[in-house]
């Protein structure tokens, strides 16, 4: 009852605000880019599979690692903005 009321109020308001933003339309350009890129990667993979796997793996790991670290720093920064008792 109480929780439901709060959820209704908060998310209805947020829904309204977010709804004012323009809707993203996927034109498919990114999809075709990814498709083209994967075609080239696949072409190289056929004769250099280990190097291709290594490069893609490193890039993927780096993106995940750095994103997680950045997220951690942002959350930490936000938490430090809250006043504390001392």
């Amino acid at each position, binding site marked *: 009852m109480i929780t439901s009321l709060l*959820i209704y109020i908060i998310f209805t308001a947020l829904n309204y605000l977010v709804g004012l933003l323009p809707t*993203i339309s996927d034109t498919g350009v990114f999809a075709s880019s990814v498709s083209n890129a994967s075609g080239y990667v696949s072409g190289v993979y056929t*004769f*250099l599979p280990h190097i291709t796997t290594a490069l893609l793996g490193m890039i993927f790991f780096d993106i995940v690692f750095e994103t997680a*670290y950045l997220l*951690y720093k942002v959350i930490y920064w936000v938490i430090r903005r809250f006043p504390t008792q001392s």
Partner: protein
Amino acid sequence: MKCGLFKISKGYQLRLLSLLLVLFGVFGLGLQNANATVLYSQTNISTPCVGAGYGCVSSSLNTRGNRSHQELGTGLIGTVASFSFSMSVSSGLAAASISATLACYDTVSTTTINYGCSSSNVSIGSLNNVAKTTYTAVLSPALVLNPNKWYGIHVNCTSACSGGTNPNEFLYGSNFNSYENPTKDYFSFSGATSSTDVMQDMGFSLSTLTESPLSFSGCMDNMAINYNPNANVENGSCYYTIATSTHITDLYLDATSSPLTYTFGYQVASADLPALIYIEEKNDRDGVYRSGYSTTTGGITYPTHYLIPIPLSPELTGNTYLTERLVSSADRTRIFDQHTIIFQLSSTTAVQVADSGIYVQQDCSITNIGGCFYNALCGVFCPSKGAMNVYYNFIATIQTKPPVGYFMVVKNNLLNISSTSTPAFGLTIPAHLKTIIFNPFDAGIAGILWFFFAIHLYKRLKIITV
């Protein structure tokens, strides 16, 4: 303690608190009882079977009427002076002399012929690779039809047909599956030695019957189960419900399966009832969320069970309706019978719900007062399904708007990458070069890359500050 205009002494505070707690418990009990209500609706339909005939489930039913050709069936009234039919014979069939009979049968059977009545024969003559020809047989004396018997054209091979032995006979206008291919408009001889040894393009219709007056007695009400579209004389045989007990049985929840299912059984005595089963599931929250017809067209087999998986987010606080409807396979708007079970999934402890926004009701009784308070607390503080739907709508909306939407586009497209991508170019490398040069180079460079990456990662971790 002040409460509005009233002053409440300390002694009464405890009593008031106790009263509130009791009311709270009663509130929880009310919730519990509301969800424990099970409305089980079940109706048994029983209608006497009217003799042996179309749609009568107490006899061995035929599927006449479902075939591509017109059949005679029962209920034929009048006198037949002649009949005619047409057919052709494929080139593979040896010369044969056949005769045609307007035959009748005492009992309807899919496997045996019962010559329990008089018949008239006509000799067709020798057939071999003839085009479609119409043959007319004159019956002398004219045949008086018996409305209680089945009639059909019975063609009999009176001499060798493709090396087969007599009688190589087939029947038109009845239900002999061993001879008839209902999908291909031809009739194969049992002694045929080739797939082309068939009689084909056999045509026959009621209009070729010559008698006066020609009439069919039968049920003429198209709302009846045993409606006979050929009937032009109403014989009062119509019935409108299934001639057997038809009901939903054994509704229960199966908590051991994944996903959870509820099961119901239904019973139809005949396997040949020309009906389909339609199932519709709905609840107070979602309306009709699942429906469909059975794929069986020849009839519904007798007692069986359907397993219905519970939807991903079951509605536990409202009614769920399970409707079973028997409809004509030819016309789905014709409803033979319908039953609806109304129930609530929360009425059984078998339902385990992991979905947020829904809580598992506790048993509330005099021996488990805690369950009452739990239910009451949940009634106040647990979010309702409607509230959770607002939240889910927000999540769905934000995924279509910037900036989250951009990430979703990237994510969705990246997820579409598969290992089966078509290479943008091809490179043919001689096998010996691949073995001697490319493979060692590939493995060596990859190893060096991973080594340097490990060093990079080590250095990166060293400068990370937590």
